[in-house]
Every structure is written in C-alpha cells, then in structure tokens.
C-alpha cells in the first residue's frame, strides 16, 4: 500500500504505455508528412497542424498523470456520475455548440475547441462496466438487456442528432462486450445476418434478393419435408417466421436506403459496391485514397517523398485518411507493420482484461478493445476501399486534440485499473 501511494506508476503495464508512445510517434510523423509545405519548418508553430498536434501530444501527458493519480476505485464509484455529466455535455451542444462542417459537435472557447463525443466513449464504457459488473445483473434476461441498451442508447442518440452518425456507429462495438458478459449468441448472429442482407440487398437490388431468398427458403422446406419430416412438423413455423422477418427486413433496407438516406450516403455505398465509378466527383476521395496507398508499392516512396501526399491530393489526409500517408511513404511493409501493431495492441488489452480479478476492470478493458477495434476496422477499411466512407479517426494517428485525448483517456483509465489488480482482495 505504501509504495502504491508514493508512486503512481507502480504496477502499470509498461508494454501498453510503450504501445501508446509508439503509436503517437508514428502518428505524428505521418501528420508531419501530410501537412508540411513550403512554409518554414517550425515545430512549435501553432499555425501548422503538425505543430499543433505536437502541443496536443504534450498536453496529453498531464492528462495521463491526472488519470493515474486517481484511485482505481474512484472510476468505479463515480462511473454513473461521469456518465451523467457526459450526457449533459452532449445535450448542451444543442444550446452552446459550434457548428463545424455541418455538425454541432464542438464546444468552442476562443481558439480552442473540444468535442465531448470523444470523452463520451470512455464515460459510456465506465457506465456499462459498472452496470454489468453488478452481481444481480443477468444478461440472459430481457429486461436487463433493455437496461444495457438504454445506457448505450442515450449517448449514441445524442451523437446521431449532432449529426455525427459515424461516431455513433462505434457504440455498436458494445455488443461484443455484452456478449462476453453473457448476452445470448443469437444477437450476434442476427447482427451479422442483418449486415449480410444489407450488403446483398444493396448490391443485387431488393427484388433479386427477395427472389433468391425465397428460393433458398423453399429449398430448406423441401429438405425438411423429405429428410427430416419430424423436425419439419416442429420447426416449420419458426423457419417461416425467420423467412418472413428477413423479407420484411429486405424491404425495409430498400426503403431506408432510398428514402431515409441522403444522396451522399447512397453514393458512398454505391462507390464501395462498384456501382458507380465517377473518380472526379463522388468517387474522388475513395479513388485518391486507394491509388495513393497502392502507389506506395512494397517498400514505399520514403519519408516526405510521397508525391501524392506532398501534393495534397487526398482530402482530409491528416485526419481520417492519415493511413494513406503510411501506405504511400512506407509501402506495404509500413502499413502491414501498423496493422500488426494494432492487432498486437488489441490482443494485449484483451489478454490483460481477462487477467483482471475485478469484473468492472475486465468489462471496461473489453469495452475499450471493442471501441479501438471499431475505429481501426472502419477507418482502415474505408481508406483501402472496403468500407463506405464513414468519417471516424484512426486511434492515435489521426490529427486532432479531442480525438487524441479521448483515446488517451480511454486507454489510461484501463492502465490505471490494471495497475491495481494486485491490490484487489
């Protein structure tokens, strides 16, 4: 206990900390490459983005120290309060927020602006961890599932209303956490089937999808009638029900896609599915991003030698498209290295989470893995042209103070919780 009080670094996982600094370093290098221009080199110049990012990085150090200074118990105890405060901050945006690029996601105080949705991820993770770690909490029960859903619903809904649907999408990640803690498997199955049907319907059109699913349905029925007559008697209502639900879902996808989505959303899907090309208009981002990465080749063109990066051809290259810089200047070796680094980092946190004695810490650990994973999968998938354009940052790489601090807080709360595991009794 004594050493714990004296030394806030006692027991922390230095490997995770190392991962953190490696990510921050690589991220900054690439932001530097993506934003440097003819203007004089000046590291701490507040007018350049690499300079600003260096300041954000510097400021994240006191944040880390602050997080480590608190007792692990503090986070568990005050999780609900932090969650409520965050919700108030999110709601307050509608009154005091500043509109940047069409969404009211920012508080602006002078030159400084701050995005509460980045903090909301950590707050929600804490809230979920606190709620689910309760011994009375049994995720097999419908009412309990609904409660958990409600906790996720509030921040997600507030963020969608900003509107920033990309950031809200990340909250889907919590399904993996809930599954780990006992949510029935069919939620995951239904989720993946829905995703599959969604993509297929958009790709083939709802008529073809409906007809092919009808054929599949009849085949299954025929199979059961002839080979499993007994199972058929019991199960035909279920099978028919599933089919009817899917058919309804397919219809609703078509409706939502054509009537609820805006044109630019539809374009993004059409681009990824190869239905539209238009590399000068709506397909410009994806095309530039993919060709920029591809031009890197095996070894890359070298630091500051990426012609497309230096020519600023990729829009938003320092934020959402930062991975293109890695791809162009460091080639396949560099980008594969970054991907493997992320995999190792995520697996390391899973590993650490499973070691926790406290259920709270474990659930929190899982939550942040799920959040990091979602960012990683969507962002890189988008940049390499496998996922439709969804503007969310790549953790630790993308330019931006709020995002960096959000991810830092997310990670270091876990580092704090993890450091305490030896004192749990």
């Amino acid at each position: 206990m004594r050493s714990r009080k004296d030394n806030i670094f006692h027991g922390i996982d230095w490997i995770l900390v190392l991962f953190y600094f490696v990510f921050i370093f690589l991220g900054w290098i690439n932001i530097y490459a993506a934003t440097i221009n003819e203007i004089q080199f000046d590291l701490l110049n507040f007018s350049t983005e690499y300079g600003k990012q260096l300041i954000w990085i510097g400021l994240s150090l006191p944040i880390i120290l602050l997080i480590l200074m608190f007792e692990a118990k503090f986070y568990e105890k005050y999780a609900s309060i932090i969650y409520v405060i965050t919700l108030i901050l999110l709601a307050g945006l509608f009154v005091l927020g500043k509109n940047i690029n069409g969404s009211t996601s920012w508080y602006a105080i002078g030159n400084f602006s701050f995005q509460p949705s980045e903090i909301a991820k950590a707050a929600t993770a804490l809230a979920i961890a606190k709620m689910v770690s309760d011994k009375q909490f049994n995720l097999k029960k419908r009412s309990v599932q609904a409660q958990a859903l409600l906790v996720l619903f509030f921040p997600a809904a507030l963020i969608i209303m900003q509107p920033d649907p990309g950031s809200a999408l990340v909250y889907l990640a919590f399904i993996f956490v809930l599954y780990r803690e006992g949510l029935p498997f069919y939620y995951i199955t239904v989720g993946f089937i829905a995703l599959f049907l969604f993509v297929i319907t958009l790709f083939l059109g709802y008529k073809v999808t409906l007809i092919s699913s009808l054929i599949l349905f009849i085949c299954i029925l025929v199979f059961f009638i002839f080979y499993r007559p007994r199972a058929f008697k019991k199960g035909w209502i279920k099978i028919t029900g599933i089919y009817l639900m899917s058919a309804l879902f397919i219809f609703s996808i078509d409706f939502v896609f054509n009537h609820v989505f805006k044109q630019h959303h539809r374009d993004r899907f059409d681009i990824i599915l190869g239905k539209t090309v238009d590399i000068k208009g709506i397909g410009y981002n994806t095309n530039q991003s993919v060709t920029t990465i591809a031009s890197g080749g095996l070894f890359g063109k070298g630091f500051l030698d990426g012609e497309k990066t230096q020519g600023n051809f990729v829009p938003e290259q320092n934020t959402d498209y930062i991975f293109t810089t890695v791809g162009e200047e460091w080639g396949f070796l560099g980008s594969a290295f970054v991907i493997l680094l992320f995999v190792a980092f995520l697996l390391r946190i899973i590993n650490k989470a499973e070691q926790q004695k406290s259920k709270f810490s474990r659930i929190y650990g899982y939550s942040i893995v799920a959040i990091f994973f979602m960012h990683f999968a969507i962002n890189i998938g988008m940049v390499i042209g496998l996922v439709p354009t969804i503007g969310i940052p790549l953790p630790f790489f993308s330019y931006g103070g709020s995002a960096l601090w959000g991810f830092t807080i997310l990670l270091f709360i876990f580092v704090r919780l993890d450091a305490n595991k030896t004192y749990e009794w």
Partner: protein
Amino acid sequence: MKRTGLLSFLIIFIAVVYLARLFYLQVLNNSFNTPTINNSAVKVMYDYPERGYIFDRNGVLMVANQLSYDIMVIPREVKPLDTTAFCTLLKITKQEFIDKIARASHYSTRIPSTFLAQVSKDDYASLQEILYKFKGFYIQKRSLREYPKNSAANVLGYISEVNEMMINKNSNYHLGELIGTAGVEKTYEKELRGIKGVKFIQRDRFNKEIGSFKNGLYDTLPISGNDITLTIDAVLQQYGEALMANKRGGIVAIEPSTGEILAMVSTPTYDPNLMVGRDRSKNFTKFYLDSVNKPLLDRGLQAQYPPGSPFKVISALAALQENVITTETSIQCFGGYKYGSGKGSFMRCHCETGGSPVALNKAIYRSCNSYFATAYRKVIEKFPTPTEGMNVWSKHAKSFGLGNYLDNDLSVGQKGNIPDGNLYNRIYPNGRWRSTATISNAIGQGEVLTTPIQLANMTAAIANEGFYYVPHIAKKIKGRPLDKKFTTPVYTTIDKKNFKPVIEGLFDVFDNPRGTARGSMVEGIQICGKTGTSENPHGQDHSIFIAFAPKDNPKIAIAVFVENGYWGARWAGPIATLMIEKYLNGKTSRPLVEERMFEGSIQEEYDKQLKETLKETLKVEK
C-alpha cells in the same frame, strides 16, 4: 471459453483481410505504380506529334501541317504581373485575360491549359524574348492544319479544340488539344493524331524543376500520325466544285469496281483554311448560323430528296426479277396513267409516245411514267395482299443500299427512306390500301427518299450488274489494309441477266435520237444515264442525274443533284457528263456547255424562295 474468443477472432480476421487487400493493392497490382499527371511533384510536358497528312488518290497533297505556337498557363504558378503590358503583348483585352485565367483555373490550377491558342509565327518571335518574365506562362509548339488545295472542305472536315465532354470521356485528350470534329479528320482521328510524347519533370517542394523524373524512365517520344490516301481525285473534286458554283446541291462519283469515292461535292461550300487558326471559332459560328446556305451541311451525304425518274430503273429491275414483265411487254401511253375511277386518279406523263407501243427500252429512254406505274403495280399485285407485294418490292430496292445508312467511313449520313408494307399499314390502318395508293413510288416520288451518295451507289450497282462495294473515302492508311467491309461485294437481289436490257435502255437515253439526255451526249464515250426531275412543293423542281461510263467495264458512276434546277437535263445532266468526260479523258470537249455550267446560277430562284419564306414568316408573326 467460446465467449472470450469471439473478439480476438474478429480482430485477427479483419487484420488478415486488410493485409490481403493491402498486399493486392501495393504489391500485386502494379497499375497504380506509374506516375500520374495528377501529381504536383511531377510536371508533365507533352510533345505533340505531327498529325498525319492527307493525300488524294494520285498522291496530291490535300492536307498538310503548318507550325503554330500556343501560349500555355499553369494558374498555380502565375505570379502577380503587369497585366496591361501582358495584354498588349498578346493583343487581348484585360477582360479576356481575366476570363481565360478563370477558365484555366476552373479546369485545374496545376495542369497546364492553353491560354491563347495558335499565335502566329511573327508574334512568336517577339513573345519568346519577353515571356520568361511572366511566371507560369510558356510557349508550346504545335502543328496546325493547312489545306493547299482549298477544296473538298466537306470531305476533309476540320479539327477543333476538344470540348469538356470529350475530355471527360477520353483521357487521351486534355484542355486545349485538337481533335478531328468533321469529315475524314473525324472518322480517321485515331490514325491521324499519332501518339503524344510525354516528358516527366521532377520538382522539389518549392516547385523548382530539378531534372527529369526518374532519369526519364517513363518519358516517351511522340509518334507521328499516319498519312492517309483518300479515294478522292483532287482534280475531279475541284472541277466538280467549279461546275456547281452558285448552285446548291451535291455530286457523288464512285468507282464501281471498288466502291472508291472519286469526288464528293457539296455546295455551297467554304474554304477549309478558314477553319484553322485564331479565326476558326469566328468563322465556324458564321457558317453554323448560316441557315440559308448551310455551308456545313454535306449535301452529298445528308440531303434527302425524292430521287424522281432515276428510281424508275429500280422499278423496272424489280418487275423483271419478279417475272411480271418481260423486255417485250409493252403498254400504250396517252399522256398519263389512270389508276382509279376518281378524277384525280391520274398520273401525268411527258413521254410523248402518242399511243405507240412502249416496251422497256423505250420506256427508259423516254422516261415513261405510265410504263413504270404498270410494272410497279404488277409487282405489288402479284402477291395476295398489297402488304406482301410492297415488302418484296421494298426488299429489292433496299438491296441497292437505299433506305439505310451505308455503314461507311464518312462521318455523317442519312438513311433516306424506302417504304414497305408496314409503313402503309400504319398510314391506312386495317389494310385499307392497294397498290394504287402507293403508285408514286414507281417513279421515285411518294414516300421514297434518297441521298446523292445512295443514288451514286445504286448507279454503281447497276453498272456492276448486281453488286456494289460499300462506298468509302480512305484508299490506303499507312501500314494497314483496308477494312474488310470495303472489299467485300454486296449483292443485290436482282439477277445479273435482268440488268442487260435496263443498261441498254440507259444507254439509249443518250444514244437514241429521242433520248431524254441526247443533248448531253459526249463523242467517244458510251455513257449510260437517267435524267430525273424531283417534284418539290416549296419551289422549282430539283434537277437530278445519274450516269455511269463507259458502258462496258464502267470506270465511274455518278449522281448529281441540283436543288431547284428545274429538270434533269438542264443542270444535272451536263454536269454529270462533264465530270465523266473530265475523269475519263482528263479534258472536256464541250467548252460551251462547260462555260454555261461554270457561269450558270440559280441564285435568283433561291433568293425568290427566301423572300417568300420570309414573307410567310412575317405574316404568321403579324
């Protein structure tokens, strides 16, 4: 334990998919690894190849190149400059300067655009000295078209700057580059344009050029365009244009044994050299807006008229083929043909045979309407329903290349029209029509429409006794044989034996003392031909003539069309025979006729029509 593994599994799965995708993009797929022009670090300079020359069939140069100089601009690199001095230097106004810069910036601020096209050689000399002072501007050498013969504008066409639509469609072209937009320049654009040479120049971050990119690894040399030899005979073409002076219309001459187009005249025409250089767009607009003379309309290819009497030949051939007449079948003509009981059911005839028996031969050289109406009616009525009969007749006519595009290497064309049973079933529903309703088709009026090139091709098919080659304009393209479709004969549905008597009839048009073109007979050349007068509701009848010569082993088949030329023998006949004489003998033996054609003008008639049209328009407006 299953529950703990799912997320780890997904992480690894996604990572493997992404690594595979990256491996595919960056390592396997090399197509992206070449420098693109969308690249600020690499400046792209084009070296324009010389466009291919165009020669006539005898090697006479028809289109050549002259050097021209374009002022190029890269908007991003333009530094503040003394606009007044700059504008005076280039002889433009300040507003033009602003517009041009805006236009170039709109296209791209990084890629060079043409700022001022086709500066003259003299201006170039003085500009070269001073232009270095104006950052972001430079001079690019390019070759311009030149037409030494001042003729065949409609055949050769012209080149112009590519429009934005074309740029978006075809990445070969960039703003300010030239592309063939009409005539041979258009159809053979790919052959003529050659391949641009590219030089990649590396720049550093401060935009300074620091030598060639990757030591010129990707640089290419320009490859000149291919020269094209046309089937046109420049002398004949120019002669035709002179004959057609002050008359509207078209001449198409074809070599029957090959389908090569020897001459293709359309008047009024223009000097092709006007479509070059800085005045091009001004001149083009002038021609384009001239809706009275329509100089840009190629009348040889695009003007559709009822062919009139020459079409009677088709009626005769169809009747012979269907065995409804023989060469001996004769009728009597009393100034017309009565095809019904009504008062108006009478087709007048000017054959002046006064009731003597008219058989095929006489019918052709006297152009007897009654005879061909009878023959036509017999074909239609051979079949149980008029629809069937009409379709058979239509099939025969269409086998001469009429009623549809010829699918050749000319940039424009018209289908014309050969009616069939379905057309009349639409006009008269429930099948309430008979052969007599369509009787005008027999003599090339009614619903029949043809273009001069179709008529010339039809004449060639008659000259060949039953087949033709698709008329084409290119004779030789460097290093490549001609398209197969131009060397494969297309057969008509008429047997060879049926052509003999018809050709005799066409010969008698000149040879018989009472032939309708007796006056155009040429000593020493056996010409077969047919006069035509196409009725025109808007004014004077059109003058039409088809002919081929010599009778045995024909060398030239020709169709002449003169708008509002009264009747066939007045303008079209003499012009056709003069053309034949010129082509076969190299000179003409009838100076008086020639003189009359050169000097003759129908301008008065055209002016009269224009006045009437204007009057009517004004009346309507009042």
